[in-house]
């Protein structure tokens, strides 16, 4: 029984981990296409037009694969955690999912119109206008899914006490259908995702442009990749500052509303007001051993608040303490990333032409991979930190999961498919981006559907 629950858990974690990578790329590309279309409309610079033409192709790929992984995720939620989805569907959380569908419709229909019929719209600003709802739709989809996650962390909108007291009857009463749209952690989580997810997508594109710039042999190609890199660096600069700010304010929310998760990720063995910041290390008995401790830093960051400690909770209720490591690596990665983006943008502002230095191109490529790692670790910290609960203090994963062992075989096939599909998709996106000679992409309108095989 436990092994099937763990399999459900692993299968879902694996598919959502793959999905967010593809989706962040989609959001990054949608943003880049929108900005490039606007710059093309305003400046009539044919390189921005060519950039759009080239970005549309991998965008179609990431959107198509992202739709598949999105459907997989949505259906898996029902199939792997039916008791969770029963609770979701009896409360206002299903209304969030329902709203998400409309965001998805906006994104899909505008994408189809823009990609396949864009050339029928002659005005450059009209074509740019078609890209705006695509960006809004993709971001809104991400926001709405994070609203569900916020509810899982800090549930509301029904009588939780009665639900828990009803035991295996799982009786839902006192439903407020609109409350889950705004839990105590919704604002913080939405702010965080609105900055970190586009940052990941744009940074990956920035790394790609920086690398391809150094490998280019013609002036046209260099100009094209430079235009892309310029946009990516500017957007990343803004987003990285906002993402760090969002992370800081989210930690404030965490110690108030999810104190046990907070104590675990900060590795606070004991509660207190002037606690040190512990980097790595572990808990042994009632104290922290190993790692690096910076005295008073945590207390200072949280303005001297009385912070929770693990000793306040029974050890059986603790989440896996690996989240302290995942959190530390995420923070270190985010700091390195922030410093790199500030450094790179600073060199550019000072006209030191960082894009001309191959070492910085490789560093950008590494930074873009680091962004993806940071995003995945952030998500893993959040999810593992809520264990053993699927809905915090309300419903456990074990009670929510589907115990049917028949799903193991097809589940393994899905994992194998993803292991092959995700790298192939990334490779294919690179191929279609560079598939045509630059001279071809410098001609004609930006959007259109001329490049599709039908």
């Amino acid at each position, binding site marked *: 029984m436990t092994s099937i629950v763990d399999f459900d858990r692993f299968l879902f974690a694996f598919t959502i981990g793959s999905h967010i990578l593809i989706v962040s790329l989609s959001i990054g590309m949608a943003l880049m296409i929108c900005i490039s279309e606007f710059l093309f409309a305003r400046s009539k610079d044919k390189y921005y037009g060519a950039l759009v033409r080239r970005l549309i192709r991998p965008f*179609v790929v990431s959107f198509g694969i992202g739709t598949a*992984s999105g459907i997989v995720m949505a259906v898996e939620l029902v199939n792997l955690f039916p008791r969770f989805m029963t609770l979701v569907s009896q409360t206002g959380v*299903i209304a969030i999912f329902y709203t998400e569908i409309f965001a998805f*419709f906006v994104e899909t229909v505008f994408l189809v119109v823009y990609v396949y019929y864009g050339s029928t719209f002659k005005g450059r600003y009209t074509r740019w206008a078609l890209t705006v709802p695509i960006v809004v739709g993709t971001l809104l989809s991400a926001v709405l899914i994070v609203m569900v996650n916020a509810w899982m962390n800090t549930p509301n909108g029904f009588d939780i006490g009665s639900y828990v007291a009803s035991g295996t009857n799982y009786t839902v009463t006192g439903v407020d259908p609109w409350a889950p749209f705004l839990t105590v952690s919704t604002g913080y989580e939405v702010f965080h995702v609105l900055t970190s997810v586009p940052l990941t997508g744009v940074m990956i594109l920035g790394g790609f442009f920086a690398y391809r710039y150094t490998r280019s042999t013609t002036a046209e190609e260099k100009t094209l990749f430079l235009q892309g890199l310029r946009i990516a660096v500017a957007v990343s600069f803004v987003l990285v500052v906002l993402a760090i700010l969002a992370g800081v304010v989210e930690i404030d929310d965490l110690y108030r509303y999810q104190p046990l998760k907070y104590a675990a990720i900060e590795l606070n063995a004991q509660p207190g007001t002037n606690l040190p910041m512990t980097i790595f290390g572990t808990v042994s008995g009632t104290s922290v051993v190993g790692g690096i401790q910076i005295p008073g830093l945590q207390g200072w960051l949280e303005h001297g608040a009385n912070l929770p400690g693990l000793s306040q909770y029974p050890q059986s209720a603790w989440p896996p303490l690996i989240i302290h490591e995942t959190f530390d690596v995420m923070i270190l990665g985010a700091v390195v990333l922030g410093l790199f983006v500030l450094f790179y943008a600073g060199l550019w502002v000072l006209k030191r032409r960082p894009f001309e230095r191959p070492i910085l191109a490789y560093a950008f490529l590494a930074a873009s991979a680091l962004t993806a790692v940071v995003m995945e670790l952030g998500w893993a910290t959040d999810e593992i930190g809520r264990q053993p609960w699927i809905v915090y203090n309300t419903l456990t994963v074990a009670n929510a999961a589907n115990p049917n062992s028949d799903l193991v075989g097809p589940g393994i096939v899905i994992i194998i498919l993803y292991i092959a599909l995700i790298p192939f998709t990334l490779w*294919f996106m690179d191929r279609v981006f560079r598939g045509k000679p630059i001279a071809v992409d410098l001609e004609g309108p930006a959007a259109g559907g001329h490049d599709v095989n*039908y």
Partner: protein
Amino acid sequence: MSTINWLFEINFAIFSVFLVLFVTELMGGVLLLVAYDATKSKVLPYIVPIWEVTGTFAAFWVVTADFAYPQMLWPVATMLAAPILVFLILIIARNSSITFAELIFRRGRLNERRLYRLYGLATVGIGLVVLIILSAIVSGAGVTLGANPTFSPWGWVTSGGSLLYVVGVLFIAVGLAPVFYNIEPLRRLSVPLTTLGVVIEAGALYLYSSSLLTGYFLVPAVLTVAAALLYAVRSTAPIASQKVVFATLGAIIIFAQSYLVYPTAFATAAHGPLSVDAVTTSGPMVGAFYVLSAVGLVVVGLLMVLYMLAVRRATPVPPGPPAPVPPVPAAHSP
């Protein structure tokens, strides 16, 4: 006096739109598999821009079903865990193959033709899984309800009408494919195949349970054969093969079969059948469903109008009749 279960009606209406979109893809998928070169110019310009919209409607229906029948999620998931995951595997295959087919430029082993045919195969596979699940929900074949619901694939296969049900739908899909895609050389096959498919469907329903074959069956049956007949007659063929007309008619045909699952579903299941009203959500969630559905349907409606306007703009205007030649003035004789 019985009241209308609007949640069921709305959910089934959305299901009808999704299913008609999917069936049009399924018909295209079959044509790509059996006659790729002869039909691709008719099939691909329709499928390539629409398959994402079909997927979105699928998600739309799944979420409204979650919303409407929360108490059914546990039984459905525990009963159909494996078929649902197989469905997901085929969805991954469908989306990735058509996505790659649209943009591939290599002409090696992995080429446009193979990828589109793989898409066709995956779509037919999805169709089979969907048919198995739908026929189980309609008939209860292989299904045991109660405290520990189960689904037996062997029980489904050996149940009287199951295989006939699948064969009947396939006949109808193949029969109507020339109508929707306006495949002139297959015109003469359309009426016999479609009619045979409808007769097989009637037989399948009767074998499941005579209570499923009622007078209501005549409505979808007559409309389905009518679509094929309209195409068979040259003067009405252009009307039948209008995509919007066909899709609307298809949605009506599917919606007209709602009697098969309402007021009860899983007709012959052990410990069945299941009262749909008994598992439909109630309380404050019903009001939220109506509000969101009203807002959402307006949004989706406007988006569909935008989509059709874009398609219309992109559709080349057929050349009109030749302009009349001005009369040549009679030559004046000197």
